[in-house]
């Protein structure tokens, strides 16, 4: 108890005067030496990973509040600090964080057998300049999530790089107050996924060569449901046409290759000033959750969605879903409009009157084959010019990165 109070004081005062720095070198016994340092750290301490490759056999974990784990860089060269889990024999992730006010920065996690870095119930967490990579590229045998904060308040993920995740590169689940910015997500099934979360800003990211660039989902039956208030702005979402390599059974396994941004069952999503280029199925997909559910709290359709002035490049020329090719042919066009909906959305507006494609479903759960596809006009709502208020508590965490 006394220790916790000391930690709070320490975090409150900017100069962590009593904090200590412990430097770990790669090489023999790295697993035990590094894990022991993480266990024995006091709140406010910094564990420094000297440059080099750390061969690890088991998951690592941080359970002390206010710890910083800092490397010499994300690599990929040996000048960086690389936690190499290629020979991992146990645990569900490479690194697990379960304490608050933790900062992870300037290192890499390679070839974790499960998720790359998971933080659970870890409030006020910063991921800065982290690389999580499955070096063999897209494979169904890769771990699910690269950077994986879940059940947290105040999450900042920035300047990081994730490649090869068989679910989502950066996945934020069941959390609130989230900033995901300036990251590069490449060759994952989903580049970035915000799921069952509220008050999230996804800005200035590059999502390319994923199956789907940026997903905003809400699923039933979880402790936290009712996701919404998400801003997706100023992202480059380019060429997300990688074949879906997610293991079947996972919700992202249903995402068509060629998806730019997909919104499923959320309330209050703004899609503004993004550059969406060469996403072959559709740049923006709005869709209801179509599986049976019994969760009375759950609202299955996307609603209150605003699509602002985005740059829509080529796209929609090869829709990768059942009946997609026939649909395109029937329109007589070379490509579908930039926005595709299943028809179940509520209150979707645009910065100007804009044509979209609907699959024409009339009820949630109805088979897609029963839909009556058509063009629709999205109503112009030029009055919506202000962006959603940003999660300032998450943004304030940037002060830790000097």
């Amino acid at each position, binding site marked *: 108890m006394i220790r916790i109070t000391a930690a709070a004081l320490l975090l409150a005062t900017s100069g962590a005067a009593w904090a200590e720095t412990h430097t770990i070198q790669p090489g023999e016994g790295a697993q035990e030496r590094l894990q022991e340092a993480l266990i024995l750290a006091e709140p406010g301490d910094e564990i420094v990973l000297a440059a080099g490759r750390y061969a690890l056999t088991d998951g690592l974990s941080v359970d002390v509040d206010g710890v910083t784990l800092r490397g010499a860089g994300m690599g990929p060269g040996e000048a960086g600090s690389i936690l190499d889990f290629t020979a991992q024999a146990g645990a569900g992730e490479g690194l697990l964080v379960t304490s608050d006010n933790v900062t992870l920065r300037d290192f890499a996690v390679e070839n974790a057998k499960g998720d790359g870095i998971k933080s*659970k119930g870890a409030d006020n967490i910063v991921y800065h300049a982290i690389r999580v990579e499955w070096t063999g590229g897209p494979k169904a045998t890769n771990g699910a999530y690269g950077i994986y904060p879940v059940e947290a308040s105040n999450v900042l993920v920035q300047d990081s790089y994730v490649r090869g995740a068989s679910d989502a590169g950066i996945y934020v689940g069941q959390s609130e107050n989230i900033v995901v910015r300036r990251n590069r997500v490449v060759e994952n099934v989903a580049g970035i996924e915000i799921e069952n979360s509220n008050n999230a800003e996804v800005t200035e990211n590059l999502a390319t060569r994923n199956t789907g660039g940026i997903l905003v989902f809400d699923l039933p039956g979880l402790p936290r449901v009712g996701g919404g208030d998400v801003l997706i702005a100023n992202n480059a979402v380019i060429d997300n046409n990688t074949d879906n390599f997610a293991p079947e059974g996972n919700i992202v396994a249903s995402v068509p290759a060629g998806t730019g941004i997909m919104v499923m069952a959320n309330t209050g999503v703004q899609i503004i000033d993004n550059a969406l280029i060469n996403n072959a199925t559709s740049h923006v997909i709005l869709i209801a959750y179509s599986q049976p559910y019994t969760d009375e709290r759950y609202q299955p359709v996307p609603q209150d969605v605003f699509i602002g002035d985005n740059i829509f490049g080529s796209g929609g020329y090869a829709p990768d879903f059942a009946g997609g090719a026939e649909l395109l042919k029937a329109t007589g066009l070379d490509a579908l409009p930039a926005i595709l909906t299943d028809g179940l959305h509520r209150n979707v507006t645009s910065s100007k009157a804009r044509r979209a494609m609907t699959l024409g479903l009339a009820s949630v759960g109805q088979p897609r084959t029963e839909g009556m596809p058509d063009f629709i006009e999205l109503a112009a709502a030029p009055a919506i010019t202000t962006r959603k208020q940003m999660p300032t508590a998450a943004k304030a965490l940037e002060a830790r990165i000097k």
Partner: protein
Amino acid sequence: MRRSALVLAAAACAFGGAIAARSAAPPTVNDAAIAGEAMPRSLSEFGFFADAGGRVPTDGLIEYALNTPLYSDGADKLRYVYVPDGLSVVSDGDGLLQFPVGSAIVKTFAFGTSADQRFIETRVLLHRADGWVALPYRWNEDQTQATLALAGARLPITRPDGVEVNYRIPNKNECKTCHSKDGEVIPIGPKVRNLSPQFLVALRERGALATIPAADRAMPVWGDRAGNPDTASLARGYLDVNCAHCHQPGGMASNSGLDLRWEQDDPHAIGILKPPVAAGRGAGGHRVSIAPGDPDASIMVHRMSSTEPGIAMPELSRSTNDEEGIAIVRKWIAGMQR
């Protein structure tokens, strides 16, 4: 100050044998080591055992057994509870016993029988003023000392039945991964519904338990499963003990929405027709945790039947499959109405 302590210690060493022989006072548990703030380097500092090898429990330790135990690569377990003199355990229905501060739970993991029995590690849970602390101690080759293994260890072990085990001694944080609810370390095993009645009687006889609580829905005795026709009860007991420490609200896997506690009776919560959330390749191409009537299409069976990290469940504590556990869960799912 420190020097004089050292001198005294040296003197005690020199005369130790003589003193022990003369007084023959029974060894006692070191309450200060349990309640203090330090992490003792050696298990012997706690005084839980009268001998260096940890075979003879000190008077004050009460052995206990569980109806249905956790599978830990087939290791045998020797379990003890210590409650300080004059203090009492409080029962809260048929759930977890509430141990007073100063209590300890001690569990030794071993392979082999009688003369061939080898201790691998002893895990201790210490109830201190600011909460429970979990620490792992690793036995040496000579079986004469167990030392703190904060960072855990991996040990190749050949089981008596010839099976090769890549045994994992959990690190301190991994202890907490399972022993955690709402971020706090807690005991898992000693729930009234899963405790042997003999232990509760012993606890009362020591004066550490006022009345023996009723276990209305006692969990089945796993060792008697061959004669138990209630497969659902066996399977649910097994899942509670092996999975529910994470898969429950407030547990490490709470975000999955899967709740495998014994008392949970919502079919969706225990996985029936429940789609995965963050299973990744753990889903193995299957769509739901439990597909009624079809164990081969159930993610639960798939993950229990794998030893590969990222797929295997539980994530910790095993490098081999528990074939007996898998068989019961398969039988339970197969018997469900499709």
